[in-house]
């Protein structure tokens, strides 16, 4: 494996309820104060190589968006650190670098409705002195063209665009900062199927042309398989499995990864092509002890209730946090895995 470009080093993020002055006084005096914190991300370590796309997969509440925001420097980690090219992304509550930019899920919320899209795209580069005023117009037009929009749209407002077009504007705004790492948080989840394909193709093209490094956060296993070189699966704040996408999809090594793949209905399989996971996703305020997946896991044994499994190397390049990783079989059916060559 090539050396790490982005390094996430044992990052944890806790969200503690905000205590008012009254709460704090009450706590000092021994009163009962609600202080249940949410451990959104627990001791996550990962790396992304230059030019690589890492997919971060999981269901709601697993901490994937929180981790994405910590990596982007938008949220400060409670513990651990994030390094880009060896330099910290944030320190003392401030983001230090402009080399990481983010594309958010909802292009209706992420664009300022009162700014012309040309201004939206150029706001960051002008503020950071990356673009001179004289060349601003030309640069804005060039970025719109890069993301597949008519350059003559620079003077238009967001409300004049469809969801797919707005997401292109959001991508142009992120790219205009010339980032080395692009964090995409569910960038196609709110788009229609036919528009999703257009934006996925845009990402594929941008990655080829601009040599982008990307963190692609998604709940959609099919899109991640299509777009990502490597994949990391999260469950209740921890990475439970990571590895090259093709290998993980062909033969997952964590029971949760396998169950998640089997739970997705497949086009070809008809009525038999999915199998639900038992039970609900536990609350992140009170996760199960030891292995957080054990109450839903078909392979759980006594050890899983006592000893938290470490994220360990199963074969070079692949890790799983499961005591019984070696016993996890391939997905039972499903073209998703079956039509892939075994690697």
């Amino acid at each position, binding site marked *: 494996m090539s050396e790490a470009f982005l390094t996430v080093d044992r990052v944890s993020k806790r969200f503690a309820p905000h205590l008012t002055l009254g709460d704090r006084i009450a706590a000092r005096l021994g009163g009962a104060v609600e202080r249940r914190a949410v451990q959104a991300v627990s001791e996550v370590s990962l790396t992304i190589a230059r030019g690589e796309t890492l997919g971060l997969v999981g*269901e*709601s509440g697993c901490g994937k968006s929180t981790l994405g925001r910590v990596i982007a420097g938008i949220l400060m980690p409670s513990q651990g650190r994030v390094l880009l090219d060896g330099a910290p992304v944030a320190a003392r509550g401030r983001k230090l670098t402009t080399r990481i930019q983010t594309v958010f899920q909802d292009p209706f919320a992420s664009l300022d409705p009162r700014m012309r899209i040309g201004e939206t795209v150029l706001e960051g580069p002008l503020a950071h002195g990356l673009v001179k005023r004289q060349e601003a117009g030309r640069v804005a037009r060039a970025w719109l063209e890069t993301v597949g929009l008519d350059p003559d749209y620079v003077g238009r407002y967001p409300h004049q665009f*469809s969801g*797919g077009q707005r997401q292109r504007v959001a991508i142009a705004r992120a790219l205009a900062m010339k980032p080395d790492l692009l964090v995409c948080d569910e960038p196609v989840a709110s788009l*229609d*199927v*036919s*528009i*999703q*394909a*257009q934006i*996925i*193709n845009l990402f*594929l*093209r941008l990655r080829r042309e601009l040599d982008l490094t990307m963190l692609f956060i998604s*709940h959609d*296993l*099919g*899109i991640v*398989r*299509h*777009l990502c070189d490597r994949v990391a699966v999260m469950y209740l704040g921890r990475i439970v499995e990571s590895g090259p*996408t*093709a290998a993980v999809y062909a033969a997952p090594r964590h029971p949760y990864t396998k*169950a*998640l793949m089997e*739970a*997705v*209905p*497949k*086009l*070809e*399989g*008809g*009525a038999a*092509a*999915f*199998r*639900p*996971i038992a039970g*609900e*996703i536990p609350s992140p305020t009170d996760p199960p002890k030891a292995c957080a997946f054990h109450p839903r896991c078909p392979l759980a044994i006594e050890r899983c209730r006592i000893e938290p499994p470490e994220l360990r190397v199963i074969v070079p390049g692949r890790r799983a946090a499961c005591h019984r990783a070696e016993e996890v079989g391939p997905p039972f059916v499903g*073209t*998703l895995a079956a039509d*892939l060559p075994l690697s």
Partner: protein
Amino acid sequence: MTAPVLEVSNLATHFFTKAGVVKAVDGVSFWLAPGEVLGLVGESGSGKSVTGFSLIGLVDPPGRIVSGSVRLEDRELVGLPNDALRRVRGRRIAMVFQDPMMTLNPVLTIADQMRLAIAAHEPVSRSAARARSIAALATVGLPDPARRLDAYPHQFSGGMRQRVAIAIALLHRPAVIIADEPTTALDVSIQAQILAEMRHLVSELGTALIWISHDLAVVSALSHRIAVMYAGRIVEEGPTALVLAAPRHPYTRGLLDSLPSRAEPGRDLRQIPGQTPSLLSPPEGCPFRPRCPRASTACLVMPEPTGDMVRQARCHHPLVLNPAEAA
């Protein structure tokens, strides 16, 4: 063949807005046999949800049903006065929404709202309502229903709320349930649980189900037949497996081709160019014409549905039959 439980013909629902008339549903026809599951598929603005709302008489001004017929168990629903419609709604035809909080009242316990839902159509004692509610919640897989019955909706997760909404829809054993994207907001693992339970329930109870969704894979897992909507019309309809294996309408083909599950990883997806047309000023003739690779001058005239009893498509240039099927 069994008699249809629901027959929709030439249904048209238009919205009379300041900007003009939006023909959200424009000439939709289909029928459902008892116990049959129809997947109604389309992208946003295709009219699939408005179709669902029209069937149950829940279209609000400025929208209204301008023509067509909805026959439920041989009773015409279009034009029925509101109080008569209310006696049918919830009893013979019920709806499950994407957001279960559209069904659930946040300030009532589940027990209270289920009792009210039963009492709306038949007199019932508290204890009998309770017993029926517990039974209904158990059928949708809610754990420990006797205890959870006295909880409020906010004490449930999204998946559990949707189960309660489905249990309420099932209370009167309706002939038809319309489910509008009921699993779209849920996680994959919870979606799979609800799909499995719905499949089991409709086959057991003989309830016909219309499952409205943008997700072709979800529909393929659940439905016997599939109807694809585009710009207010059904453009293709037929048995799920046949439509997915060999679509006849270029739009269905395009939708399937744009899915990453059908492509080699890392390769460009085949995309449908352009975007869905504005329903305020739809293109002349076939609404898919500006995006269609097969379009010709013939397409300036709106195509009528063609095909046989089993499969139909609204296209002047349908894709050739799968050779295996033609043989």
